[in-house]
């Protein structure tokens, strides 16, 4: 099917898949069809090999070392920071902080920036579709400050109701934090529009770009967002590393989040002077291999090209939507106009857990449950969970055929 319907000449999928060793694994006797990409992506050989290469040739602690290995590791580490800067078009590398992942990035902002700008009686705005990682930090911040957390509502298609947002924002609003692309609905939010409104009230905006980083070109200068966080492991890179972008003026004004190691300029028994950006926010020995190889993941994405990735993924999504329609009895949760390549759904009358278990038995990996957006699924959509099939460019039309066949099988077993 790939050869017939795919008109992407720039990506040779069969060859590309060979770069992902795990895709040739078998599960329950079947080749794996991996549709859990929104949870974590698989890794190409270039990324896997770059990790080994780091440990086999230049492994050493970064910064302050004067020996050659340390110099080389530092250079590779800082080169990767520069790649990350370019990847999201930040103005300078001082705005690029290596963190553990999106969750740590957002927690850092909530703790170091949020505590500073949010006070009693103030308001913070997020949306009804936030991942727990972009909900609980603000819930707890507001709790501790006696501030109010407000939620931009979501319509039945899974889109933000921006009219409501414009009614919510006011002079009490001190911060907005929003998911760029929803991990459970697939919705691509109109963040530019929201940032513009927010800035007209002088309110800074944090973007959770965990799902955006693997799927679209991010431009923090064009977006004009104040902070943005994403995870390496969702963009074909290693686990345990991510990026927090922050505008220089904000990062300069914030106290450090953790203390120790390279984030210190000088210290006496009485007093500490902190280092310049971005080091002020990188306490302790960083995930050096992870940081360096995040750069390799960026290289990989740029070699493929954002547009090629996008086109391929949209074809997969369109194809899957079409097949799902033919199966019948499938309710898709999240049908926004502007949507990334994932489908959250339930087969009417069948529990997501049942669907997922049978699919697993057919070698098809989907995620079931709340996808870390429990209030959205439970309170807003009143569901016990959904099944989520999230695609990546390396998925094939044949795999989607198998998914569709699997769902028909599930229907026949349970209904």
């Amino acid at each position: 099917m790939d050869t017939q319907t795919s008109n992407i000449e720039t990506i040779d999928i069969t060859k590309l898949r060979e770069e992902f060793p795990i895709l040739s694994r078998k599960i329950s006797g079947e080749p794996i069809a991996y549709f859990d990409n929104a949870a974590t992506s698989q890794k190409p050989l270039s990324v896997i090999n770059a990790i080994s290469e780091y440990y086999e040739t230049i492994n050493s602690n970064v910064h302050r070392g004067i020996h050659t290995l340390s110099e080389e590791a530092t250079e590779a580490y800082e080169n990767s920071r520069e790649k990350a800067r370019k990847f999201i078009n930040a103005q300078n590398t001082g705005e690029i902080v290596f963190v553990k992942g999106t969750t740590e990035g957002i927690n850092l902002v909530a703790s170091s920036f949020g505590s500073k700008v949010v006070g009693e009686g103030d308001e913070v705005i997020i949306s009804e579709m936030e991942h727990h990682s972009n909900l609980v930090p603000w819930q707890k911040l507001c709790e501790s400050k006696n501030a109010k957390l407000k939620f931009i509502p979501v319509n039945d298609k899974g889109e933000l109701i921006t009219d409501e947002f414009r009614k919510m924002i006011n002079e009490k609003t001190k911060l907005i934090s929003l998911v760029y692309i929803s991990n459970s609905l697939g919705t691509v939010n109109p963040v530019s529009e929201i940032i513009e409104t927010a800035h007209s009230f002088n309110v800074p905006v944090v973007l959770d770009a965990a799902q955006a980083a693997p799927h679209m070109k991010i431009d923090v200068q064009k977006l004009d967002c104040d902070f943005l966080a994403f995870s390496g492991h969702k963009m074909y890179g290693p686990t345990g590393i991510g990026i927090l972008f922050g505008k220089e003026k904000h990062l300069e004004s914030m106290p450090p989040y953790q203390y120790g190691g390279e984030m210190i300029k000088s210290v006496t028994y009485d007093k500490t002077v902190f280092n310049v950006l971005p080091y002020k926010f990188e306490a302790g020995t960083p995930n050096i291999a992870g940081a360096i190889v995040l750069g390799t993941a960026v290289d990989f994405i740029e070699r493929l090209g954002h547009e090629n990735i996008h086109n391929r993924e949209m074809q997969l999504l369109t194809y899957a939507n079409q097949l799902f329609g033919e199966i019948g009895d499938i309710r898709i949760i999240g049908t926004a106009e502007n949507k990334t390549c994932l489908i959250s759904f339930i087969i009417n009358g069948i529990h997501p857990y049942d669907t997922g278990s049978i699919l697993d038995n057919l070698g098809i990996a989907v995620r079931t449950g709340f996808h870390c957006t429990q209030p959205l699924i439970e309170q807003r959509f009143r569901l016990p969970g959904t099944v989520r099939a999230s695609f990546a460019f390396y998925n094939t039309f044949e795999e989607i055929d198998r998914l569709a066949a699997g769902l028909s099988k599930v229907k026949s077993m349970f209904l």
Partner: protein
Amino acid sequence: MTESKTISQREDQIVDDFSLFDDWMSKYEYIIELGKKLPLIDENYKNELYEVKGCQSKVWLNAEMKDGMLYYKADSDAIITKGIISLLIEVLSGNKPEEIKNAEMDFLNKIGLKEHLSPNRANGLNAMINKMKNFAIKYSGENVN
């Protein structure tokens, strides 16, 4: 329910039943059938108190004593889970609490369920077994009064 049989006889029966299937899809089909047939629990037991924690679907479980024997009722919002509880009930229900307390539940290994459901889902399975055994402990000799 075959109340005259011992727990281990019942286990053997299930192992026998499962030996007819040679792939997991057929086993699932059988479990689903059992799930569909599971006698439901009263709606008023579907609350926190009777909920089994640690499962990926909601599970509620209750037990009552009748003539010295312990009888279970359960429900879940997922059918596979119901089928699995149904197996557990088939083995344990209608026995003396002391016997239930000491049941080894070896059949779960023998039919390959434990292995097939490792380890997130096995946690849920263990949680169900623990809840059942806790009822048995509650109603067993030591705690009658």
